[in-house]
């Protein structure tokens, strides 16, 4: 593409794969005219490891820890999604207690994933304090993960037909305390970002995408809700216990990077509220209630599709089973895969210094993009 036309005014800057702005291995080739970006070309695939093909060689149970490793910070939702599609294939509904436990685990995962994103925004905007404060709060969330299921990142918590273990006796106390603490601490970070005119000046009005374009490009998740599409899988296509939860889906019509930032911060507050509701509900369910169903190893023949609201957007798995204990085909729809394909549209016309902040609002995770 560089050979198309020699243009003395413009130059191609290759940002990535070893570049501080690319959180993970990917490349954004940006054509700059001075400081203004005129064109961009995202390139992914450095981490392609044939995840879907690998799954065709494995038992359904063994895919759960593999699904954890799709994305380092959204492992809970990915393994949840896989269990979801397997349950849909088996045509079963998990016990109530497991549903609420999954909701709690999912929302903890969402908070820690958004905090990881906030940390990345901090470094991309050039402030390390945001990074460290956000990571500090994330560490408390990861501690909750450890309490609940024994690992920080690769949780391996959901199972087909329920969850791995009931919550330990101290988890309820720790979780509520941690959430209350977090709600206060998040305001500190909000003070650093939203109350700082420099930060707002950095993200406001850049990376604009209209509502129609956003829907057409398939952008999902907080990036979509920042463009004015009022859609959340948790609310509009509820799974597990989300139908009973009472929460607010923040939507902004501005369509710029700042709106996406605001959506994510508000989502963290709403996640806290969901966790509190779910913990309250869990109190009313007896501790001896079933939380895991016994499921057969083999899944009957058919095609099945499940979707879930990942921290980064709408993730879908499409499973074709052939009656054995291994999937015939398992397709993963990664939200970042589609969002990053729209990055060309997002960065056109912004300044070079804005590329990190615009791309940070996508919240890159290459493990699930390349699969």
């Amino acid at each position, binding site marked *: 593409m560089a050979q198309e036309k020699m243009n003395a005014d413009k*130059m191609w*800057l290759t*940002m990535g794969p070893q*570049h*501080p*702005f690319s959180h993970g291995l990917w490349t954004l080739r940006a054509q700059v005219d001075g*400081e203004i970006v005129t064109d961009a070309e995202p390139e992914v695939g450095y981490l392609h490891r044939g995840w879907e093909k690998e799954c065709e060689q494995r038992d359904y149970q063994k895919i759960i820890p593999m699904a954890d490793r799709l994305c380092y910070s959204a492992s809970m939702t990915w393994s949840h999604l896989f269990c979801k599609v397997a349950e849909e294939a088996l045509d079963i509904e998990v016990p109530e207690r497991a549903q609420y436990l999954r909701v709690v685990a999912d929302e903890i995962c969402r908070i820690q994933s958004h905090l990881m994103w906030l940390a990345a925004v*901090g*470094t*991309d*905007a*050039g*402030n*390390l*304090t*945001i990074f*460290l*404060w956000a990571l*500090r709060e994330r560490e408390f969330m990861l501690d909750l993960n450890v309490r609940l299921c024994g690992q920080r990142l690769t949780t391996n918590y959901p199972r087909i037909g329920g969850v791995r273990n009931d919550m330990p006796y101290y988890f309820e106390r720790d979780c509520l305390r941690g959430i209350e603490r977090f709600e206060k601490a998040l305001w500190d970070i909000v003070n*650093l970002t939203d109350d*700082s005119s*420099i*930060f707002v*000046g*950095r993200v406001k009005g850049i990376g604009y995408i209209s509502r129609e374009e956003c829907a057409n490009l398939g952008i999902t998740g907080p990036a979509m809700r920042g463009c004015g599409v009022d859609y959340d899988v948790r609310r509009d296509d509820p799974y597990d216990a989300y139908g009973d939860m009472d929460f607010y889906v923040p939507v902004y019509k501005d369509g710029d990077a700042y709106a996406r930032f605001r959506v994510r911060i508000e989502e963290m507050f709403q996640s806290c509220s969901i966790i509190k509701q779910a913990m309250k509900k869990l109190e009313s369910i007896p501790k001896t209630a079933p939380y895991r169903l016994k499921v057969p190893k083999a899944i009957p023949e058919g095609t099945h599709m499940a979707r879930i609201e990942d921290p980064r957007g709408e993730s879908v798995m499409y499973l074709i089973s052939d009656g054995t204990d291994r999937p015939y085909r398992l397709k993963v729809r990664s939200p970042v895969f589609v969002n990053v394909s729209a990055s060309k549209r997002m960065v056109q016309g912004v*300044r*070079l*210094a*804005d*590329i*990190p902040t615009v791309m940070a609002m996508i919240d890159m995770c290459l493990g699930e993009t390349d699969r």
Partner: protein
Amino acid sequence: MSGLREWIVNRATDLADGGSVCLNGHEYSDIVGMSPYDVYNLPYDIGVKVWESLGGLIAWLINLFVPNNAVSFALISDTATNAMAIVLMVVVIFAIGFVTNLTMIWQERKFLGRQMDRRGTMIGPLGYLQCLGDGLKTFMKENVAPRAIDKKIYWWGVVLVIGTSVLLACMIPLSPRWFIVDYNTGLLLIFAFFALAPFLIMCAGWAQNNKYSLIGGLRAAELMISYEVPMLILFAGTVYMTGSFNIGDIITWQEEHIWLIVPQIVGFFVCLVCAIAESERVPFDLSEAEAELVEGWQTEYAGMKWGLIMLGDYFRGFVACALVNIMFLGGWSMPIINEFDWYYQYFPELFFVLKTCFVFIFFITARGALPRVRTDQIVNVGWKVLMPLAVINLVITILIKWIWDYGGVF
């Protein structure tokens, strides 16, 4: 050891009797009791003392083997003592500047760590030795230079950037007795050297044959041009108020009248912002914005070159803080305690450094609290906010000066 001391005392007595050792053109015997604003130079004095011991030791050792030889007498002659004392003076000034710089690096890392809820450096007492360890580590790295560079500018660019920074730091007087040369255009010269760096950075960025460093170098030039002007206007206010370019005179004026921060409070904050920008620190570190340009203009400088650039950056930070200190906070003068005799006898250097470090806290907090400013915003702020404020500050200064001198504006 008694032989050495005896020998030196004898020689020194001989020399003093002869009265031939010169210090800045004054007789050695005249030094004691001279006005501190005139010529008494503490580093030079230290240099003389050190050479008396060191050169005297060498001369005595030679004298032991070959009694009454010419070399021994040449080593302790007034010419040799004067020359070596000047060399040692530079070494002493640089050493103190270096230690000050290390302290500021330590201060930044520790304070920044506390702001970010971490511990900062942990090696040595209170983590002080971490910087030395880091320096040693950078020093031992391989000296890599890319193939497709413009060699002359690549090497000379970085050498001159570091050299001017270190030179600047040594040119800052720490007290009326701690300077290299007591020249009347002191502040002007410092500003001139300070403004030299962006040109060199631009050249160095171009010479690396790297797109990131090219953009970084150009950004540095852009940034410097927009912030040099308000800084110089502020400087005009200071000079108009005090009536001198000489740093000693500026501080003496502030000591006698009032610290300039009081009439020029606007100018102080403008100067802080400009000083941060001049020393290319967060939030104005556009030339090395690591999010979009990997390391900016330093991308291709590896190993000790990079380490020295970082050191030079801190030297420039020190100079910027010291300039704020000299122009607004009265340098080494302290309001009440400088009435005492012992203050000017022992403490002015210490208080100067302490005050500089205090100004540096603002720099650190700005780095901790604020994200990086975008290129267009930075120029906007420079020309549309700081420039008018600086002019307003100058007008206020002129009005105050007129009222002060003539009792009215008209």
